[in-house]
């Protein structure tokens, strides 16, 4: 599977009459973007904002972030299962608009699961150091739902654990809209020559190099357009992930953007043929809290790694909920099978008495820490707020000074490997 990713490096973004890329500037036809979104009856309205690094702007109620990409040649299309047919991707040539993200911005709707949903993005000031999207040129889509979808506000919008069907359906629509817009923006480059091209191919390696898999503990996202638990895990090629097969992180702890550019997989590619033989990815997750199910999913994850012949596994884990057990059991399973593991992980400790794990296995002896979920960060008042009048889990004025947790900042607690934030334990 050979994937060429051609980058158009974007340095400026502006509205204009016709969407296109020239001389490092992305011009966005606002009316066309609105038409694209409002063709879907889930929406009464959409506002299109262009937001740049350093601006005195705060985006609240942010959800997923997507990088604009378009499939130029090869099988399948971009964002399979949403924008194109749900068939295998990861080959041929894909164009990307480097330095640009399409942001999904929407207030919670009635019946939506809002547990830990707060996602704030400050484009300047101290908060900007924590979110990668304070460094990108953003096309923020602020959605207004069609009121006929939610005739009564009988369901409290706060802390519904499961989420109603209507809310699920609406959330899928906002995800789809972002993907459509992301594809539309990059499509403008279809006939142009990219600034540079990277090639991703897992070429044969010297047999002495250790075989390494990426074990990705995923959660509540879409795979080829389908939202499905993976209780027995599944195998994917990293190129499929780069090509948008895995999308729609609703809680925005993680984001689609950082799967399209998944840093753990990219670093394994960098090391491929030099210090490791990167053999593929195992995705696994299950949503039930039952013990047997945890044993099933973690055992299956280890088995798939073994079927890949892995001698090492890089895990992207989940902490802070009962899913933490699945991550740790998967590590135990791998180590039992002789597969050496490292883990990229988030500290969820509340204070010095709390070691920061929901569950810890002694086998987890090689952890890279991406910071602490409840680290307090004070955001100064902001000149402009995008994304509504109210925060998801606080009554504070979103324009004012806010003291938030690291987890409240957009994609600041992601284990997708890009962050340099870290914590040491003394």
């Amino acid at each position, binding site marked *: 599977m050979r994937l060429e990713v051609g980058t158009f490096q974007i340095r400026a973004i502006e509205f204009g009459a016709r969407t296109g890329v020239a001389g490092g500037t992305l011009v966005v036809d606002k009316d066309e973007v609105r038409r694209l979104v409002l063709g879907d009856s889930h929406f009464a309205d959409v506002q299109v904002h262009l937001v740049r690094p350093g601006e005195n702007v705060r985006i609240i109620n942010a959800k997923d972030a997507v990088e604009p990409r378009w499939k130029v040649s090869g099988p399948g299309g971009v964002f399979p299962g949403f924008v194109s047919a749900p068939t295998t991707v990861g080959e041929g040539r894909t164009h990307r608009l480097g330095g640009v993200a399409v942001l999904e911005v929407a207030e919670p709707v009635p019946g939506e699961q809002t547990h830990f949903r707060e996602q704030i993005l400050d484009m300047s000031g101290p908060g900007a150091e924590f979110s990668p999207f304070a460094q990108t040129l953003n096309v923020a889509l602020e959605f207004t739902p069609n009121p006929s979808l939610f005739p009564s506000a009988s369901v409290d919008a706060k802390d519904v654990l499961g989420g109603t069907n209507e809310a699920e359906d609406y959330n899928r629509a906002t995800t789809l809209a972002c993907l459509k817009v992301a594809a539309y923006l990059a499509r403008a480059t279809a006939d142009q020559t990219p600034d540079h091209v990277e090639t991703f191919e897992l070429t044969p390696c010297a047999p002495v190099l250790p075989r390494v898999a990426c074990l990705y503990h995923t959660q509540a996202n879409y795979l080829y357009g389908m939202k499905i638990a993976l209780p027995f895990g599944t195998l994917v090629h990293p190129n499929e992930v780069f090509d948008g097969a895995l999308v729609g992180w609703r809680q925005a702890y993680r984001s689609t953007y950082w799967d399209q550019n998944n840093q753990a997989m990219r670093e394994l590619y960098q090391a491929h043929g030099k210090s490791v033989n990167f053999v593929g990815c195992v995705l696994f997750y299950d949503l*039930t*809290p*039952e*013990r047997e199910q945890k044993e099933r999913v973690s055992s299956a994850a280890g088995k798939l790694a073994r079927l890949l012949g892995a001698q090492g596994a890089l895990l992207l884990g989940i902490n802070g909920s*009962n899913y933490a*057990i699945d991550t*740790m*059991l998967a590590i*135990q399973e791998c180590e039992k099978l002789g597969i050496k593991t490292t883990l990229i992980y988030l500290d969820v400790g509340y204070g010095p008495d709390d070691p920061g794990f929901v*569950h*810890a*296995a*002694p086998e987890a002896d090689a952890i890279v820490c991406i910071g602490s979920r409840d680290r307090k960060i004070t955001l100064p008042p902001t000149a402009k707020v995008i994304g509504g009048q109210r925060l998801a889990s606080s009554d504070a004025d979103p324009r004012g000074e806010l003291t938030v947790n690291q987890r409240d900042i957009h994609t600041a607690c992601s284990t997708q490997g890009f962050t340099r934030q870290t914590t040491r334990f003394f």
Partner: protein
Amino acid sequence: MAKELEAAGMPVAYVTTLDGLARSVGAPRIVRGKAITNVAGDPNLRPSDEKALRKEIVNKALKALTTPVKKSTAFD
């Protein structure tokens, strides 16, 4: 808490879904529960079957209390 009571001479059958955690913490007598949201039950079962499951779990706990242990032990 289980450890502290045990150390003071009071045997404790610790019924938990996080049996791996209990073991790494060093709780002496561990009984594996069903799920975090229902450690001693299962809403998917018929009431009579659920009751039987619960009795089985409690019976395991009683067995744990009457069994001498030297280190952290899970009872199945």
